[in-house]
Structures are given as C-alpha cells and as structure tokens.
C-alpha cells in the first residue's frame, strides 16, 4: 500500500464527507423518473386519511396492523425518532376514495349482518401489478438509508438487473419480524434456483438440503460488486470463511490456481468426492502430464500408485510451507 494511495483514499472520503454534510438537509427527489412517481404516488384525486381512519372500523387487518407496528419499522417510525413515518398509505397510496362511501351506520349494519364492510380496493395502488423496479423503489425510497448497508450494490446486482424485486423474497405482512428466518432461506431461494436444488442432491454437496448451511452463508442476495452475489469480494475469500486452512499465502503456491477455487470445485454439488468438478486423476491430467506408465515393467502396481487419486500423495495441493523430499514445491510433504 503506497502513500499516494492512502492520500487518495483519505481525500476522497473527506470530499464525500464535506459534500454529504453540505447536502444532508437538502430536499431529495423521491423517484428517479416521473413515471415511477406517478405509479407509486397512487390516485392524485385521493387524500391521505391516516391509518386510524383506514382501520378504525375494519378489523380484517388488525393482525397486519399489530405486526407492522411492532416490527422494526413500526417501532422505529415513532414521531420522536424524526424518521419518515410509515403507515398503510405510505405503500398502498392515499385511502380517501377507498372509504368514501363507508359510513359508521353502514359498518354497524354490516356488522350486525355478520359481514365485513368492503373498501374500494381498486382505488389503492395495485402493488402486485407494478413493474419490478417500481416495486423495489417503493421500499428503497426509505431503505436507501439502511442500517445494515446490505443494499450497497443492490442497483447493479444481478437480482435487480433481472427484474427481481424486494417483493419476490420479502413478505412485509408475514409477521412481526421482517428478517427471513435462517431455516426458511433455502426454500425461498430454491423456488427460483431449481437447478441448484438438483446440484445439492448430487453425491458430494454442501449440506444445504440438510438445512445445516444455507444460501446466505455464501451469497448476499442484495447484490455485490462481484458476479455470483458472493458474500466476500472473491471466491477464495468466500470459501475460506469456513475453510481457513486453505487460504494461504504459502511459501509454495499452486501458481495462482488457489485464488480461483472453482477451477477445480463445484461448490453446490458434484458427482465426485470433495466437490471436485472432475474426478481424479483426470482433474489433474487436464493441466499436468501424467507420471510414468510403462517404466515399471508394466506392473499394475505403479499404476496403482500413480493413477488413483493424485492427492493421496500430493496431499497439500492448496499450498504448503515445507518442501517436498526433493526440495521442490510438489505438495508432497
């Protein structure tokens, strides 16, 4: 790390901090372009009436209201926190038209008849029919400021680019906690990623189908700067979160193959032991010439030594710090 780079980084952060402080109180645009504003604002001829007016005579949504108010958003959105208030109309649009024909008398009469008084739901924003980008923007208008910073690369992440919206994975009215339970993550991901589900059924696999590990142990579905939505900056850094013994650096490296675990391994599953993409010895013979085949009087014994599993002898194939018997880095030691 040279001094120039440190100075560059420091200056960049300083400039961003000064710029940020200067603009912190300025009014922000709500949506990137006008059409999204129109989609997400709802009926312009309707007025906001507040959650109490929405739900005072409708107990159909009581549990949803309770769960929401007890959730992180509900608990954080009290007036004293100075954060933007979130209520039913923040997402569903202004509600005056939906209840304009509902009177206390009608509600009372319906209740006496044992039925629920219906709102004009068609006057709300049809959230399910919005384009995926607009669906996500509905959430991002608040979650652009995100405590966990996990949306840092959302916009250019593969999910966003491929029209996956927040709604595909998060059900905001599922209950009090909005964090997806660890034990539910796998099924949520495999609903779409069914090829990976088949790979996890191959003889060698990470224990995802067994629910010991889950997709988010390696992937960040909210977007990363790398392809594959890996949780770390590189494949190697992701794998060595658990397989630290293979990270290195070592005195004897396997060239730079060790940086790219997927040159030899299929992380979701494989028909070969140890998640190998190709079985040994062919795996190694793709790049390395084989040992002698005929010099030992064509005994099958030399073949038994040289052509079973290469890693029986080259057992430190990810790298080593002590030399082989000949003093070279053959990963035999």
């Amino acid at each position, binding site marked *: *790390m040279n001094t120039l780079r*440190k100075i560059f980084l420091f200056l960049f*952060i300083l400039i961003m*901090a000064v*710029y940020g*402080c200067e*603009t*912190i*109180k300025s009014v922000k*645009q*709500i949506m990137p*372009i006008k059409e999204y504003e129109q989609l997400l604002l709802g009926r312009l001829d309707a007025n906001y009436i507040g959650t109490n007016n929405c739900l005072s005579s409708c107990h159909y949504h009581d549990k949803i209201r309770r769960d929401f108010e*007890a959730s*992180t958003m509900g*608990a*954080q959105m009290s007036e004293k*926190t*100075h954060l933007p208030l979130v209520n039913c109309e923040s997402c569903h649009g202004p509600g005056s038209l939906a209840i304009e024909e509902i009177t206390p008398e009608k509600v009372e009469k319906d209740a006496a008849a044992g039925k629920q008084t219906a709102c004009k739901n068609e006057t709300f924003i049809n959230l399910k029919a919005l*384009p995926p980008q607009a669906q996500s923007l509905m959430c991002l208008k608040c979650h652009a400021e995100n*405590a966990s*910073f996990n949306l*840092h*690369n959302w*916009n250019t992440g593969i999910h966003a680019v*491929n029209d996956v919206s927040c709604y595909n994975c998060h059900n905001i009215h599922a209950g009090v*906690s909005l964090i997806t339970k*660890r034990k539910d993550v796998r099924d949520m991901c495999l609903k779409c990623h*069914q090829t990976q589900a088949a790979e996890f059924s191959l003889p060698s696999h990470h224990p995802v189908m*067994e629910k010991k590990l889950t997709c988010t142990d390696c992937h960040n579905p909210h977007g990363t700067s*790398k392809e594959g939505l890996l949780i770390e900056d*590189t494949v190697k850094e992701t794998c060595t*979160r*658990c397989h*630290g*013994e293979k*990270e290195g*650096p*070592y*005195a004897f490296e396997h060239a*730079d193959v060790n940086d790219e675990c997927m*040159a030899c391994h299929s992380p979701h599953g494989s*028909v070969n032991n140890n998640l190998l*993409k*190709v079985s040994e010895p*062919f795996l190694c013979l*793709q790049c390395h*010439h084989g040992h002698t*085949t*005929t010099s030992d009087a064509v*005994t*099958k*014994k030399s073949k*038994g030594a040289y052509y079973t599993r290469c890693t029986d002898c080259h057992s430190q194939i990810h790298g080593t*710090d002590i*030399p082989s*018997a000949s*003093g*070279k*880095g053959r990963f*035999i030691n």
Partner: protein
Amino acid sequence: MRKIIFILISLLFIVNKVYASQEEDDQKMLEELGIGQEAQAAYKFPDIKPEAELMLGYRFVGVSGSKKAFEYEYLKDYPVFDGHLDFFKYPHRLRLDLDFNNNKDYQSDVNYAYGDLLLTRWFDTTFYHNLDNIELIDLDPSSLNYEVDIKDSDVRYGVITDIHNAMLRLKTPNFPAHLYLKILYVMKDGKFQQRSLSGSGYFDNIQRTTQERDIDWTTAIYEIGANSHLGHAEVELAHIDKRFDVGMDEALFDNYTANAFRSAGTFPHNQVSELKGSSNLINIHSNYNESLVASATFSIKERENEASGAKADIYQGAGSLQWTPLTRLSFFMNYSHIDVDADNPATASITDINGSVTTYPGSVIPSISKTTDTFSLTGRYNPETGVTLRAKYRYENIDRDKAADWGLQDTTRKNTFSLSAGLRVIKGFDLKTEYIHKAIVQPSYNNEPDYSDKGIASISWIPAAGINLLLNYSIAKEERDDLYFSETRNAKDRNTKTENLMGSGTFQLRNNLSLTTSYAFIRYKIRQDIVYGDVASTDNDVPYNEMAHVYSASLNYIPIDKLNIFALISQTKSTVEFIPGSQDLLNPVSIASFSKQKVTETTYRLSADYECMNSFSCSLEFQDNNVNDVLDNIHDDNQDGHAYIIMLSLKKKWL
C-alpha cells in the same frame, strides 16, 4: 490505515451529532407550531402476548456400511428438542429459535432488539460431517516398491463444524448512524484421514500411507464498523481482523528413509499453517432513488502466513453505476480493480524433529503477483409490458508478474457477450432465453477455453389453477486448440459439453392433496489430449464423461384438519468414466478403473403430524437413505451404506 479509519469513524459520529442536534431544534420548532404532535400521539406499541413452542422427542438411528448414507447427520440415538419464542414488549423484541438433534448437531438463532437503539443477532450452526476412510489398494503385495501402509484400518472419521455468527448494532438516538460489531467463528474439531507419501518421499521408494489426524481448527473473523447517511451519500467504514489457528496440530511427523536430497530422519509433513490478516474497508453509495445511482468500495487487505512468513497485500477498488434515462431503459456498469502483491520466501528448508535443518539449493518459485481489472456494461430494455431484453458485455484483464516462472501467460484477456430475453406470452406463461459467448485471449490454464458458447431456455407455465410447471434447459460448449503442458507441447485440443435439463411440476390434486415431481439431468463431457511422462505420443481425444439423473416426487395430504402427512421419494443416479486410449494404460489394469464409478442414492421420507388436543401435537418422522456402489469396483473410493432415522416427538404451543 487503521488510524485513518478510526479518525473517519469518529468524524462520522461528530458530524451526525451536530446534525442530530439541529434536527432536535427543528423538531422543537415544529412542536411549537403544533405540527407532528397528532402522529406522535397516534403511535402506540401494540400489546402482543408472547408466543412459544416447545417440542420434545427422541431420535432412533440405524446404520450399516458407510455413514455416507447420512453424510451430515451424527448417527446416534439421542433425545431431541426444538424451541421457539416470540416476545415483543416495547422496547424489547426477542425472537428465539432452537433445534437440538444431539450434542453434535444443533442450531440456534437469537434476535434481540431494544427499541431502535440496539439490535443483536446470534446464530449458531453445529453439525457433524461423516468422512470416508478410503482404502488404499495394493495391487501387488509381493512387490517391494509402491507399498501401501495402512495405519488407520477400520477407523471411522468425522468432524464437527461449529459456526457462530454474532452481530451487535448500536444506533445513535434520533439519527440513522450506526456502530456495529460482527463476529464469525468457525471451529472444526474431530478426526479425518490423512493420506500422504512416506518411504523416502521420492521416486526411489514410494510408499503410500494413510493415518488418523486430529484437528482443532478455528477461523475467526472480527469486524467493527460504522455507517451513516450524509445527505445524498451513505458511507460505511470497517476494520476486519481474520485469524486461522490450528490448535496443537500443526504438522504430522514420520520417519523417512534417505534419498538423493536428504538423509533419513523424522520429518514433518502435511503442515497446516496459522494465518493472520486484516482488512480496512470503505463503502460509499449515493441515494438509490435518483436516475443516476453510484456505489464505490475500497479495501486494503493484508494476509500473512505465520509459519513461513509468506505475505500478500491486496488492494481492491470497485464501483458501480446505474443510469435510468427512461422507465423502460436502464444501464448498469460495474468496474473492479484487484491488485494482489504476493511475497514468498526465496529459499526452502525443512527441520526434522531434532531441530536439524536441511536447506535445499536453488530458489523457491516466486509467488504470482497480479492485477485484475473487470468491467461490465449491461443494458436493459422493456419495449412492451411483459417483454424484457438485456445485453451485456464483460471484459476482464489479468496481468501476472513472474508468470513465466510458472509457464503461464503474462496477460489473459476475457471478453464475454450475452443477450437475454424474457417474454410473458400470456398470463401464467413465461419464457426466458439467454445466449452467452466468451472469448479468452491467452488462457492460462488448460481448463480455460479459447471460446465458449452457452444457451439457456426456461419455461414457467401455470396452465390451470393448482398446476405449476417449470422446464429449464442449458447447454454449454467450450473449445481450446493450444493446450500447454510443462514438458510436452504436442497436445492441442480440448472441448467440453455441459448439459442441464430440469423439469418440475406441482399439482394441487384436491384441496387437501398436492403432488410435486421433479427431474434433473446433468451431463458433463470432456474430450482432451493428455500426455504422460514416458509416452512419446499424445493420447488424443481422451473422453471423460459424467452424468447424473435426479428424480424426486413428494406428496402432501391433509385427510382431516388435524392430520398432515408428507411423503417423499428421491433418487440420484450418477456415473463417471475416463477412458484413456493408450494400450500401456489399459493393461494389466486400466487406469480408467481408478476413476470409473456408478453410484445410486435413494431416499424415502415419511412424516405425519397430528394435533391432539389443547395445542398439543405429536409427530412421527422417518427417513431412510441408501447409497449403492453399483460397480463395486475395488479401485474406486465409493462404499455402500444404508441408514435410517426415526423421530417421535410431542409439541406444545402457547399462543
């Protein structure tokens, strides 16, 4: 750099405190004007009764043959319990999940929040991995060289993996600035098979050995950071420390006979080195709700091997930009730069158990330092509702230092083009296609192609209510025409073909009965020239084939409201074959027999859950797994195994 990060974190909080104070003044002004009080009065944390669930039961297991039948289950009879608790009483919010299968297999997930000021999460995953004891085959016990030394006959291996993941986040009152601490602890404890080469450790006396190895490894990652928003930008700063500790098991020691390079002695082998590292990270992104959205990441990482002193310094800069000029048109740009500066010791030596050092003449091949730049640009266009077109170009350039010492290319350039289309033909019928072409200039490794082409097509169809069908097919081909081997240069061609077919269907047969079926076909074929040390000619177009069929069918039936029955059967059939052409390699025993395999794995599962009375329910779960090595080839490493798990449990809910 750590000092700079510390100063910046402090600055972030000082700045936020100033603005938080200003906001408080503004709020006082609003309150004086009577604005906002109505909403404040309206908020009241709802009264929610705690909800809890407790399950107690017992698990019976039976196993014969290889424990690979349940590779990730600790196969021992054990009492089990599960628990779940939701407790919400403002300002406390607590969620607790616990699954305990046995002392080597349990999971917990605890979330606790205090208002909006503190948020914690801790989850633990502990599981047992049954590992193989692979038998080394001695094809001719009468021969002296190429001996086999089996020191661990009949030892059963397994390792417990214990993953602790904890997070604590503190928020400043009344302002979204956060300070957080994350800890990841991965511990591996148990025994695994260590195969190695003993004898002299050289060609003059080859002896393959297998023995038991105890491990107690820990990987620990600590991250402390802060983030907040600064107007149009959000900033996060973090410092990460990483350690890998091996406990007492750094290396094995064994006796070696003399060879041309060193005298006989007791030398270490299969050393696992302790590692340490640190990272400093800065993330910045602009507000997401603008037509131009940008994010940037800078990180500086250091890694050091404590045994040999090998080092790597890694600098990374990454940026992304989204531009949405029109609702129907967006562009996404990603750029990353990774600079790895690796430094390994110049010479090699080994110290025997008595402290005697053997230093080898000649230098160690220097590690490769490299710079990788990656740029990608994606355009997305929606000409009509239900139609999405995407085009992507990706360029990657790798510049290696000291590549010639390894027989690698100094520079490798990868160009990837892809086109994809998504079409909603009618409501409930979606079609997606994608074509990807990749061209690599000066590929470094033989398993990298010069060119590759991949096509993907998928159909999702809901023909009627209660029927959901999915079909996905992909095919990829790779070609390479200038293979490189370190000693023989006449090998040229390699081509591969990968096919995946996946189909699934869900059928709601009746209101209380649903059926889900799926089938997957995976095929990977390689034809490649390979070379051997003592065979003058190249073995041309050697085929290597892998194939797997995965079948699954499950039934969910609710005959009465209180009874839920689930049944599943699945089977995976896999084959691998490698067929060299040279007659030398086929007699008297074919080297293909060492890798040829045909394995069938079958799973049966049945569970029934019955709600008895007063929130009590009882359940029965049965699972039977069978691994069958169809070929029973003594030269491969597959073993037959059969195991079952039966679990009886009683559950009580408190709502």
